[in-house]
Each structure stands twice: as structure tokens, then as C-alpha cells.
């Protein structure tokens, strides 16, 4: 596994706004191996969506400054030409968005929206593209695809719209699928179906998936590896088993404690992570999580407030916290 399919190194994304520079992503590195799923978890504003929009170059070039490296299958994407990116998008890398109602064009039929991606990247004829759209709708489990292909998104139910969105994303057999909170806007019963569908399609195509979510349940059921993000940085990284089984970062503990569990008694209240996410314009010094962390005194206030902790160890299960491994194990039984 020396050459991961997607490799992001020291990615930094700054937005220039009227209030100042927003450090949306700050020195982020991660890899995605072929055929695996990486779950990226974090609160709103932790930089998880921004990271993935910049992989596709979908940020606003006027106000956004990006540095670092993004290698996709050996190709550098930062600074790549517009036509290179246009050839890549929807073809090698596809994206699924959170709200399928607003993310699909209300003015074009489902078939047209799926077909045009195919035509753009393969040069297929209109008829071929339509046949392909029907085939894709069949694959994602839309009943009567030959009829529904001519429907508009508003004639579909929420779950069907997300299926159509997935069909659109997969029409060119992408190697990497970025799913940005694909189930957040859906009914709970539909959520599981969509996640199952994604897993099934991954088994068939061998695509890599980046699953962006704030729902650890989604990560547990779909991902192989996890990246926990906080304030534009990775605070913990590892396999699903490592991160969810033996979490090491206080923020990950907080996320787990704030999640409802079927096994817990109903009397045990959920504990939210106290405080609010930091301002990305004026980040706290040192560890960005220290103002919300319960273990600053244990780890050493000077350390936590002074220098920013890096992910360590470099490979495998790593976290960015000054607590010693023994302390972490003791705190999180």
C-alpha cells in the first residue's frame, strides 16, 4: 500500500471574508486506499466539507487560498488547469451531496441530468446516454426506471432522489466517490437503505469512498478508516475498530458520549461536548480543543495552550493530544 489512491498532504484552505481570514482547513493530511471507505467525522464547520470541495476544485478561486498537495492516482490536483478538473469531475471523482432536493436541478429531468454527465465524459449520443441513465436507475433500485427516467426531481421521493443522485455520481464508474452527509436529509428508514446501496455498489465497482458525516453510526456501519476533524485539523485517525473501540482523543470521547446508544439505559443522559466550536478566524493558541477539554490540567496547561499537538504516531492509529497513552487508556475504559 505504498501508493494510496488519494493522498492529501498539508492541505490548508483559507477563505478571505470581510471579518478576516477563515482558516477552514489547517495542515490536514490523509490517505484513501483503493476500494476502501474513509469516514471523515466532525462538527459543522470542522472543515470536512471544505476539504472535499477542494479535492474537486469547487471552491471559489477569488476568495479561497489553497496550499498543500492533493495527489489522485499520482496526479497533482492543486493548481491543475480548469479543463483537467472538468475532465476529472463526475468522471474519476464524483460527489454526492447532502440534500438531494436542492442538489438536483429542478428544471431538468432525472434522465437528462444523469445522461449529460455520461455524454460529457464519454461522448455518447443522446440515445446512448438515456439508455445508460435507465441502466443506472435500475442499478440503484428505482422501480420502473424506463418511465421514471423522464420524471423531474420533484416527482421523486426523498430516498429516490438520493438514489438518483447516486446513479448520477456513478454513471461514469468513478474511482473515488465523495459522499457529503448523504443521509442527513433523509428519513431514518431510508438512511440505512442508502448506506447499504453505497456499500453494495462499492463491492461491485471497487471504488474508494470518502464518507463525510457527523454521525458516528454511519461511520461504524460503512467505513474502514476514520478521520476525526476539529477546527480544520485531524485530531484522530485510525481504523474504525481503533477509533471507535479505543478512542484516544478527548474530542472523540465527547462525540461518542453525545451519541445515543441502544445498549445504554434510557436514564443515562446524553453528554454533549461542552462549549461551542471555536472561531476559525481567531483560533485558540495551542491545541484548538483546549478551551472545551476536561483534561487540560491533567495533560499540562502550558503544553495544551502553548504548542499545537501533531498527530502521532505518524502511521496507524494516531491522535493529536498531549495526554500520555496510559492516561488516555485510564480515562477511557
Amino acid at each position, binding site marked *: 500500500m505504498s501508493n494510496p489512491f488519494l493522498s492529501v498532504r498539508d492541505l490548508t484552505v483559507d477563505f478571505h471574508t470581510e471579518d478576516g481570514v477563515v482558516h477552514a482547513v489547517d495542515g490536514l493530511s490523509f490517505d484513501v486506499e483503493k476500494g476502501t471507505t474513509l469516514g471523515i467525522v466532525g462538527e459543522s464547520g470542522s472543515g470536512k466539507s471544505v476539504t472535499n470541495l477542494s479535492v474537486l476544485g469547487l471552491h471559489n478561486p477569488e476568495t479561497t487560498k489553497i496550499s498543500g498537495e492533493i495527489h489522485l492516482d499520482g496526479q497533482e490536483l492543486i493548481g491543475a488547469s480548469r479543463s483537467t478538473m*472538468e475532465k476529472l469531475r*463526475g468522471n474519476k471523482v*464524483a460527489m454526492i451531496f447532502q*440534500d438531494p432536493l*436542492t442538489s*438536483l436541478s*429542478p*428544471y431538468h429531468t432525472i434522465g437528462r441530468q444523469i445522461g*449529460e454527465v455520461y455524454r460529457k465524459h464519454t461522448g455518447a449520443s443522446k440515445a446512448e446516454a438515456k439508455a445508460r441513465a435507465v441502466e443506472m436507475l435500475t442499478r440503484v433500485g428505482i422501480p420502473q426506471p424506463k418511465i421514471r427516467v423522464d420524471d423531474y426531481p*420533484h416527482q421523486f421521493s426523498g430516498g429516490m432522489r438520493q438514489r438518483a443522485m447516486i446513479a448520477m455520481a456513478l454513471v461514469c464508474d468513478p474511482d473515488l466517490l465523495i459522499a457529503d452527509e448523504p443521509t442527513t436529509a433523509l428519513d431514518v428508514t431510508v438512511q440505512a437503505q442508502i448506506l447499504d446501496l453505497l456499500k453494495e455498489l462499492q463491492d461491485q465497482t471497487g471504488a474508494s469512498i470518502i464518507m463525510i458525516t457527523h454521525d458516528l453510526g454511519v461511520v461504524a456501519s460503512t467505513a474502514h478508516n476514520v478521520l476525526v476533524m476539529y477546527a480544520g485539523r485531524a485530531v484522530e485517525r485510525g481504523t474504525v475498530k481503533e477509533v471507535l473501540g479505543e478512542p484516544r482523543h478527548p474530542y472523540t470521547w465527547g462525540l461518542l458520549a453525545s451519541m445515543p446508544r441502544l445498549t445504554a439505559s434510557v436514564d443515562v443522559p446524553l453528554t454533549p461536548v461542552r462549549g461551542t466550536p471555536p472561531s476559525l478566524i481567531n483560533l485558540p493558541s495551542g491545541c484548538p480543543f483546549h478551551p472545551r477539554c476536561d483534561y487540560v490540567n491533567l495533560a499540562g496547561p502550558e503544553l495544551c495552550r502553548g504548542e499545537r499537538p501533531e498527530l502521532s504516531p505518524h502511521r496507524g492509529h494516531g491522535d493529536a493530544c498531549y495526554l500520555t497513552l496510559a492516561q488516555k487508556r485510564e480515562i477511557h475504559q
Partner: protein
Amino acid sequence: MFRFITRRTLGALVTLLIIAACTFFLFFAIPADPARLACGKVCPPELLEQARHNLGMDQPLFAQFLAWVAGIFVGRDYEGLGNCPAPCLGFSFVNRAPVLDTILDRMPLTVSLTIGAAAVFLTFGVATGIIAALKQGKALDKIASVSSLVGASLQIYFVGTLALYFLVYQNHILQQPKYVPFTENPAAWAAGLALPWVVLAIIFTANYTRMTRSTMVEQLSEDYVRTARAKGMPGRSVVMRFALRGTLIPIVTIFGVDLGTLIGGAIITETTFGLQGIGQLSVKAVGNSDLPMLMATVLVAAGAIVVFNIIVDVMYAVIDPRVRLS
């Protein structure tokens, strides 16, 4: 769709009938006597009585209105004045001719004026609006905003007079406005109307620039526009096929209103450039107390608004499949 249009057309006819009645009864509230005007300067009482009778003005008001409505279907005959075949919208006491003939005679000018100007301001307004939206905050955007503000504050008689002076009398860039029927000589038709088109366009473009810009800015930040980019759609197609589609709705709305208004008569424009269109006709009808002519011009204006409103509603459904006509 067909049922929608039928229903709306029936509604439109009722609207027009109400407007006709309002115009008719309002006219008798003003102190003017068409019979005296028809009779001439020196008018003995018997002749005046005769004129009253000929014009049907010795009948009760309501009967007169009914006679007018009936005339539309069966035509009317004015003893000693002339015949007005169906559909008779009235017979002008001043011109001594059916008003419909006069209206149809002037209509081509007003329609030419409207269509030419509309083509210019729609194209130009939407184009500058798109550019301004794409270059948000840049120099081009600011130029577009400032010039559209200036354009919106200008008046036709001001711009028109300046344009006449500089473009026609001083530099002979454009012709003195005159109307040549399109069927006679298309080049002369365009050359004769170029100046009023440009002047109307200067005034109207501003609205379209501002409307297009603000809606386009909104549309460009829509999720589905982002999706289109994420699919690899090239920038131009994202703008023209996805973002512009949603922008069309408010544009079509104001375009319908503007077209309706202009067909009803660009009174100031026609006066400024000395063109004899529907607008001039209505102004003269008021001055001459020419009730039938006045009613006809009001009906043309109202009819244009009503018709374009129906067209706009149909266009909504064409542009946005979520709109169902019912």
C-alpha cells in the same frame, strides 16, 4: 394547458368588458359634449339635436353602452355619418371612420417600436446582468450597477431629446425617426426606428440588468449549480443551462409587463419622436373628447396587458416543470 388558456381567455374577456364599462361611464363624468364637437363651431339647437340623435346620445347611458357592446358583434350604422361593420369598436366622431380602422392603421408602428426596443433591452439587459453577476465586485460589475442606476433614473424626453440632438442633428449617425412599414422596406424600417429603440432600451435595460444580476447571484450559489460543476459541466454550460434557467422567471415577469405597457402606447416616446402610434392616438382622443377612440385605445392597452399576463403564466410552466397550470 388548453383548459388553463381557455379559462384565462374567458376571464380576460370579462376583465376587458369591465374596463370598457368603466371607461364609458367615466367619460360621461367629464364635462364634454361630443355632439357639440361633431356639430361644428356654429351650431343651431336643431342641428345639435340632430347630431345627438345621430350619435345615439339621446338614448339612456346604459342603452348606449349596450349598443356599443352589440356593435362589436353586429356592427352599427350611423345615419348620415357612415357605416361601422362588425366588429365595431365604435365610430369616431372626429375622424368620421370606424375606430378599429384607425387603430389597425397605427398598430404596426407601435408594435414595431415595442418589438425592436424589447429585443434590444432584453438581450442587452440580461447579458450585462449575467456579466455583472459573474464578475461580482469587480470593475465590470460596478460599471454595470452604476450605469443601470443612471439608466433607471433617466426620462425618455430627456434622453430622447439629447439623442435627437447629438445623434441626428449634430452627427447624423442615426436617422430622424420615421415609420416605414417592414413589408415595404425592412432596412428603412429598422433605420427609421433605430433611435427610439435605442432610447427606449437605455431606459428599460437598467431594470433587466439589476434583476438578472441579483437573481443570477442567488442562482449561482444554489446547490444544483454546484452539483452541475461537480459533474464536470464546463463553466459556460453551468451558467447558461443551469443558473440562467432559474433567473428567467423574474425576467419573464417584468418582460411581460413591459411589453404590455409598450403595446398600449409609448405615449412619451411617440410624442418625443413625432411618431403616430397608439399612444398619440389616445392622447388626441382625450383632447377631442372622442369617446369611441378613447375606449378603443384603452381597450388595446388593457388587452395587451391581459394577453401578456396569460403568456407569462404559460411561460412559468414552460420554464419550471414544478409549476402546474390549473
